[in-house]
């Protein structure tokens, strides 16, 4: 056996061990929140997001479709009758659109926070509350301590935290269980929206998984269009 192959085997073994340690988080009988995006669910180790964790959606600029994906996951999280708390700092979240995606307006609580301090406090309090199903927020800048506090709060409240953040945030460290980068693509000839998702970070997975999805605006269903030859990190990707 030559030294290089021994090294490969060793690395493979170590990777397997890490994967086992990371994926077999003791969560017996936990309810998984489907992302309502089948190709993404297929990649996530539990087949969906876990309540009590944070999910980051990174997107460059506006109009990318990242919030739609987050609302789809929130819709699933509110099936337990626990509401979605939207902490909106800019006052621009438009509830009728969320209702059209299938969110029950009775399970939607809109919180308007004018300052960053109020926003951080409201997110923290909502994540900590066992009566809440999911929290949706747009923190642009998030220091590590606040991020960690939110992660602990989400764990305490068993709440799914959905954070929409600018793409530059990928350079920052993260306490999110799942981190996704959303890139819009030109729409399909039928006029359906297409998005390229990069699964930048997820417990139990190594490397960046990239895949394309198509979104139907009528039914709000998402399906896969291609599974790119992954796991190759896109040039800019630097794992946090």
């Amino acid at each position, binding site marked *: 056996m030559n030294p290089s192959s021994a090294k490969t085997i060793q690395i493979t073994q170590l990777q397997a061990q890490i994967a086992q340690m990371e994926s077999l988080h003791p969560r017996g009988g936990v309810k998984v929140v489907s992302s309502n995006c089948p190709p993404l669910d297929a990649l996530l180790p539990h087949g969906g997001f876990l309540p009590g964790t944070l999910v980051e959606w990174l997107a460059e600029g506006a109009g990318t479709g990242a919030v739609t994906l987050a609302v789809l996951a929130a819709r699933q999280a509110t099936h337990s009758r626990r509401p979605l708390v939207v902490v909106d700092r800019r006052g621009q979240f438009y509830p*009728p659109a969320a209702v059209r995606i299938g969110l029950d307006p009775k399970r939607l609580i809109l919180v308007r926070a004018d300052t960053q301090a109020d926003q951080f406090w409201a997110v923290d309090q909502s994540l900590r*509350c066992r009566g809440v199903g999911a929290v949706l927020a747009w923190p642009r800048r998030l220091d590590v301590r606040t991020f960690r506090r939110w992660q602990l709060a989400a764990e305490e409240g068993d709440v799914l935290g959905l954070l929409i953040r600018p793409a530059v945030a990928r350079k920052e460290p993260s306490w999110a269980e799942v981190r996704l980068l959303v890139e819009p693509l030109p729409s399909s000839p039928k006029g359906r929206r297409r998005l390229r998702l990069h699964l930048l970070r997820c417990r139990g997975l190594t490397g960046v998984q990239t895949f394309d999805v198509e979104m139907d605006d009528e039914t709000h269903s998402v399906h896969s269009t291609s599974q790119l030859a992954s796991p190759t990190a896109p040039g800019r990707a630097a794992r946090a």
Partner: protein
Amino acid sequence: MRPELDGRPLILSRQVRGVERVFACSHEAAALGVIRRQPIAEVKGLAADGRLTVLPHDPDTDRAALLQWAEHCDRFSPLVGVDDTPEPDSLLLDITATARLFGGETALAGEVVAAFARRRLRVRAAVADTSAGAWAVAHFHGAFFIQRSPLLQIPPGETPDALRLLPIESLRPPGRTLTLLHELGVDLVGQLALLPRDELPSRFGPELLRCWDRATGVQPEPICAVWLRSEFTASWEAEVPTRRRETVHAALEQVVEQLGHDLRAAGRGATRVECRFYCLPGEWHGDRAAVRQGGNDFSNKSQAGDMAPPSSRALVRFVIGLFRPTVDAKHLLGLLHLKLEKEQLSGPVAGVEVAALETGPLVHRQLSLFTRDTADDNGQPGRHELEQLIERLSNRLGRQAVLTVCLLPDAQPERAWRGESLVGGPRRKRAGKPFAGELPFRPLTLFSRPLALRAAPSLHLPSPEDEAISPARIHFDGEEHCLTESWGPERIETGWWRGRQIARDYHRVETAAGRCLWLFRRLDTGRWFAHGTFD
């Protein structure tokens, strides 16, 4: 509420069996010949265009306005209520005990009318033995319509007689009963008196007799007070004004416990609680307290209070709102302490007062647990925590900042929903059904103000004739975007009666980078705006 509409002909419209009709109109509009129940289409020709403003009638707005006016009326009576119907239009004042302080009922009613006149509001005031009787007289008595007098006092004991000549509608019986009565030729209350009383319930249902008895005073009718300050307050006066925080906290605890005790005894829970700290220097103006206890110099004081609010430095006040009526002193204290931490007491504290501004019937925990369990199949925990979260958020961020979403059937995107506060105040009765139609495709991000677009200089703006063409390049969000796809237009127009008419052609566009934006072109100016992004 809308000063720009002052002195202009204004009409409130409402749909009756598919036809938009006049529900109410201002005097200026009446002078133009507008009458109630007239179809809006007919009104159109009465004034030069643009002069007439037509707004949709909204009972919720009415109720909110009445609640505000009720607050101003608390110097006339300790018990002021808003008409407890889905579409309230009246304030009810119990003046049994206070009339003599103003020199009689007529004098008091005169002051009420004058007080509203000073605020440029015309009202009709009726004094009668019962609140239902006063309502009937104020709405239907000829004195208001023929002699145009603003107030009418029915002498004590004569209310049943006064009702005789009023139409049967004045008793507000249920709609079906009303139709039946008209079919039988019973149009006036007096005719009802000729029918055998015992047979009324079996012929017309129990409600008619109840309405009548309430109007004549045979049965009592409660006024649902909006301002229960006089009923549920607790105060503490320091023997020596103190600066010690512990003493102030102990005092607060004492008054809150007293308040909780009083509320529990009455079977009510507080939904809004006001807390006041009277600090030195400066006099201790018990402005509201003076109204209650001031005895003979009542009217002087209340007018003084009208003009000069007590020095704000001497009085520190704040209000907390609750999701569900509560008497739990510990819970109230927790919320008050959260607020108190942010307040600066100006000096030694001479007194503390707490008052339940709004209360609701107390729902016992046992009962609510039970209903919860049946509603939630999985025995979901956290309902109570959720209520507490809503209260904490509302009390720190303001009750206008924590909202539940109510969809409205309005074509204009900005008006297609409304946020309603989750805490404080009685649950509002919804006059309309929640909107349940097919929702149009809309962006998740809608700018509170549409952003005017500057088309790239190399391109000329499309002329108003090319309605379907949108600009090929736009500046937006600090970048230039090349548009590759466009869907639309979706034309959104609002009625001309909205005052500022909206006429826009919306386009959903996609940029070369695959981003989706929502643009519109104003049909009147041809200018382009970005209104949202499909995030």
